[in-house]
């Protein structure tokens, strides 16, 4: 087992519980997709990315773009925990004039590189950032987390084509493959498979991992080359929508929803029960 894996598994439990707590404060949220991507986010923010929360504009930082902007409910507690801002700042999540809503705003939330929310846009932005990095011969890398459903968008594939064309080895896409878009299973709504083959045929190195297996996630991220490479990497992170809460798992009515006090308590209890034994 990877030396960091156990610690990060615990961190993922913490983050999932914060997602539930925050959704209670916010009166609901994109729970399914935020819970599914939590492990990949934890791997990124506590193992992969270089950043300085006290200096969000640090020029040497790695860049992370959340293309599935509706995952703000998952990302914002991570940024908070990583030290970008105090928890009190999220106390009015979703309220009038709050910096925090369903989708992240780069001009309101420290640590957010790009305002996202309209699906399909993030990878193109990441391509522009990666091209800038190459132009400046920078060592930092670019990571972009997409939803699987948003890969229905043509713009994703325009971006994918250009990333390999421009030899963006400094760019890594992670697709949170939770198998659902808003209306149902992706393979029923708009089939994505053979998904990995699509990325490979667009010139990317592509691997698939169990997105809830921290060991596999860390191994995949550790294999990503440095910024000087020529080939972009796609990590398809196979996940369960609503992961960790029994009544939310693969239950699409929890794509965007809120828990009452009783369900909140149950969710937190179930998540705590997922905590691994400390070695």
């Amino acid at each position, binding site marked *: 087992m990877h030396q960091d894996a156990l610690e990060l598994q615990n961190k993922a439990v913490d983050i999932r519980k914060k997602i539930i707590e925050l959704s209670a404060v916010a009166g609901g949220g994109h729970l399914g997709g935020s819970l599914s991507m939590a492990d990949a986010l934890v791997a990124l923010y506590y193992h992969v990315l270089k950043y300085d929360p006290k200096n969000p504009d640090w020029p040497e930082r790695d*860049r992370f773009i959340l293309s599935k902007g509706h995952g703000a409910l998952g990302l914002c507690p991570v940024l908070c925990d990583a030290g970008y801002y105090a928890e009190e700042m999220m106390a009015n999540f979703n309220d009038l004039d709050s910096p925090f809503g369903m989708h992240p705003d780069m001009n309101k939330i420290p640590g957010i590189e790009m*305002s996202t929310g309209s699906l399909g*846009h993030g990878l193109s932005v990441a391509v522009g950032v990666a091209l*800038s990095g190459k132009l400046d011969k920078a060592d930092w890398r670019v990571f972009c987390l997409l939803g699987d459903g948003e890969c229905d968008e043509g713009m994703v594939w325009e971006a994918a084509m250009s990333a390999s064309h421009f030899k963006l080895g400094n760019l890594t896409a992670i697709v949170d493959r939770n198998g659902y878009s808003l209306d149902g299973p992706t393979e029923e709504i708009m089939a994505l498979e053979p998904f990995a083959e699509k990325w490979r045929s667009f010139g990317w190195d592509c691997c698939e991992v169990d997105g809830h297996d921290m060991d596999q996630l860390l191994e995949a991220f550790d294999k990503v080359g440095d910024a000087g490479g020529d080939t972009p990497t796609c990590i398809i992170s196979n996940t369960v929508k609503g992961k960790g809460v029994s009544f939310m798992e693969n239950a699409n009515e929890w794509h965007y929803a809120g828990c009452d006090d009783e369900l909140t308590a149950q969710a937190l209890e179930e998540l705590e029960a997922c905590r691994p034994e400390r070695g």
Partner: protein
Amino acid sequence: MPKGFTWTTLDVDKFATREMYGKILAEIAPTDDRIVVLTSDLMMSNKTGDFARAHPERFFNFGIAEQNMMGAAAGFAISGKIPFASTMAVFASLRCAEQLRTDIAYPNLNVRIISTHSGLSMGNGGTTHHSTEDIAITRSMANMTVIVPADANCCAKVIVESLEYQGPIYMRLGRGAEPIVYKGEFDFEIGKANTVREGGDVTVIACGICVMAAIKASRKLEKEGIGARVIDMHTIKPLDTEAIVKAADETGKIITMEEHNIIGGLGSAVGETIAEAGLGVKFKRLGIPDIYSTIGQPDDLYERYELDADGIYNAIKGLLQ
């Protein structure tokens, strides 16, 4: 010279705004390493080849994928670059409306959207390639500055000034064969209209290629003893409302003139200003009368839609009756 769109090749009599765009960028690039130039398989017709040859490492051709180009432009901007992203106006404003609004204008990024072949300048390309909605679309995006240079010299001023300007700019270039309005030294400031002909009887507020047509009509009217003021409203947003109110006060008659649908563009912006100022003036909008423009050479189209010197001359005479 190949047959077809002869007006996209170098015009020996007139100086092309699009040619100027590529030239000026190539010239100023060594002074500012933030400049990057993006195109979508239109390097030849956008005249960005000069830049591509001089600075190949800062030139990015995205192929026929405008939305990805605009998204990437946002990515360059958040990385501290000043991207000049060019494609035809119809694609920049319609196909990429959401990228302009959500990826560029909403985060208030320093992207310069250089839209070429605007208005009717694609001529016999027909409606699919005419861009008569782009001013309306872009001026309704908060944070977006909208500029329609009248000629190549004005275009050069905008490019240079844009390096120190904060926020996104939509710059609308036309057929690339606009007659020169500004010769020698002239004042130019984004957001400040230029009065290019004085006159006290009527005011024409125009932008782009319409400015020269209005100047010609004004000269003709002068011989008849009619003073037709011509204002080059190169910046549609932020709008120089002071110049409009002053003209309305002093001349009492306003005609707007633009290579755009009469709905939503310069005419609408001027009309809103006059109405909110509570001024009762005679007012007319010249432009495409809310129809899809027909096929034809640009000059024939300008004549058809009264956007040439005769058109504005007749419109002024009509308003004065």
